[in-house]
């Protein structure tokens, strides 16, 4: 069927996407690499000069970099832990027969559809604010001192907000996977006298492994570059306590106008993301093939 004619037509149809994505991959990235070797500040135009690796050594020895690296990992791992464990629990719950299942599902999915800036500002002001927030009111109700979340536990607050947004995603995907589990298999295991726990460990969990892997992969891609939630809640602070790599590079570029330094930071972020992606793809390749 696939004659020479249709094959070249197919190539023609694929070309625009490939060329666009290729350009999108190469042009800005090449510019970032080029800038990363320059001493280049937007406040001093015309003063650009070759700087060798000094931008990199400056960025890599900056204490803020290690803090940001730690925070990036904390956000990714923290949110992954909450959403995967919570998502499995919620999916198991929603898979049970109940009244109004459709409506509960709609309620649970909702946070995922909220834009990050709205989610973060609502949590920051109406819940976590130590004076007017709902949490403060609840604390006072029990005679406790209101806790200033964003000042005293900025990173944890960011993790909570982001986890709230991603929990529905994990739940929805795990629930979909759960519903494709063969009902007869479950019944057979039950007949054979398997306890609920061993049914979960030996039947349900292996069935979910593929979906869990997919959840981890997709969330990691997005969680490595959490930005809006940090920008509108803590602005990276206090100090750099809630600054992640994305935010650090942003601050270097658009607040300090240090093009060279920010570019070096950007390249470091790309390299780190690639390392993570490499291990992730290997892990996922194994699960998806099985």
């Amino acid at each position, binding site marked *: 069927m696939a004659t020479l004619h249709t094959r070249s037509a197919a190539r023609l149809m*694929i070309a625009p996407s490939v060329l666009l994505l290729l350009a999108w991959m190469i042009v800005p990235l090449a510019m970032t690499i080029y800038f990363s070797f320059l001493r280049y500040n937007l406040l001093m135009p015309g003063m650009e000069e070759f700087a060798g690796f000094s931008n990199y050594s400056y960025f890599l020895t900056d204490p803020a970099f290690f803090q940001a690296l730690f925070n990036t990992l904390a956000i990714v791992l923290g949110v992954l832990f909450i959403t995967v464990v919570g998502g499995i629990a919620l999916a198991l719950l929603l898979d049970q027969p109940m009244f109004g299942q459709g409506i509960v599902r709609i309620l649970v999915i909702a946070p995922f559809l909220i834009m990050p800036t709205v989610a973060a500002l609502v949590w920051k002001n109406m819940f976590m604010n130590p004076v007017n927030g709902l949490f403060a009111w609840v604390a006072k109700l029990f005679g406790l001192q209101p806790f200033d979340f964003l000042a005293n536990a900025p990173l944890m607050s960011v993790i909570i907000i982001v986890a709230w947004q991603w929990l529905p995603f994990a739940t929805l995907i795990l629930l979909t996977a759960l519903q494709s589990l063969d009902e007869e298999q479950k019944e057979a295991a039950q007949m054979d006298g398997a306890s609920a726990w061993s049914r979960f460990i030996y039947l349900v969990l292996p069935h979910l492994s593929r979906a869990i892997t997919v959840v981890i992969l997709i969330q990691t891609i997005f969680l490595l570059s959490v930005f809006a939630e940090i920008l509108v809640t803590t602005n990276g602070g206090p100090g750099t306590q809630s600054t992640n790599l994305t935010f650090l590079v942003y601050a270097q570029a658009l607040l300090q106008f240090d*093009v060279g330094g920010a570019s070096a930071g950007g390249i470091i972020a790309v390299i780190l993301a690639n390392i993570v992606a490499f291990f992730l793809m290997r892990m996922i390749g194994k699960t998806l093939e099985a």
Partner: protein
Amino acid sequence: MARNVSTRRKIVVTVVAWTIGILIFFPILWTFLTSFKTEAEAIASPPSLFFFDWTTENYHEVQSRSNYFLHFMNSVVVSFGSTLIGLIIAIPSAWAMAFSPTKRTKDVLMWMLSTKMMPSVGVLVPMYLLFRNTGLLDTRTGLVIVLTLINLPIIIWMLYTYFKEIPGEILEAARMDGASLSKEIIYVLTPMAIPGIASTLLLNIILAWNEAFWTLNLSAAKAAPLTAFIASYSSPEGLFYAKLSAASTMAIAPILILGWFSQKQLVRGLTFGAVK
């Protein structure tokens, strides 16, 4: 007896699930309710859930103070524009890869997906400078271009998984029956492809509407979509909870409704067809 136990169990599950569901949804419900309060009531202690003087004042206020409608339209233009352009570019590609695959098709698809793994911040500096030098900074056109590019891999992947499910034999059967190419496209292919294209459109509008890295960094007053406009509430003056809530409610309502209608497609699209 067994029936009795299972009914009781069902009731317990229902109560637990509804409680958790409402807790998870509560921040959104609270935002919605607060948007109808006065600023004083919005921070009143103890807070009132339903029993307050409902007012739509905040909605008028948000519009008159900050030209809310402009930002709303920016969101509409940017999300629909980037999605439609993305579809126009992606449909032929996905079609070709699904129906005349070569040995390299899988590699091309994986490569496209891998472009999503590049962190946006890696190209923030050059994009900002390119936009500044070409006058694209703070324009709808600029945002449409960037959002088209970042979502193109997802659009292609989604379409590919849908097109893959259209049986090729049906095309051959139509050809046997003497259908011309144009008839084949109009009567056979289009009706079978439309559901997949529609789901892709829907999901991508949701993603583009909520995109909050490039919209925050590449737009200011003029072209700011709702993501960036709402962010301006992070440095408030005076009482603003009710107004923030009104602005937020209008920003999230359309997408919430779209999303609820497309739950199934959401899973499929977001996992690139790996979970159906």
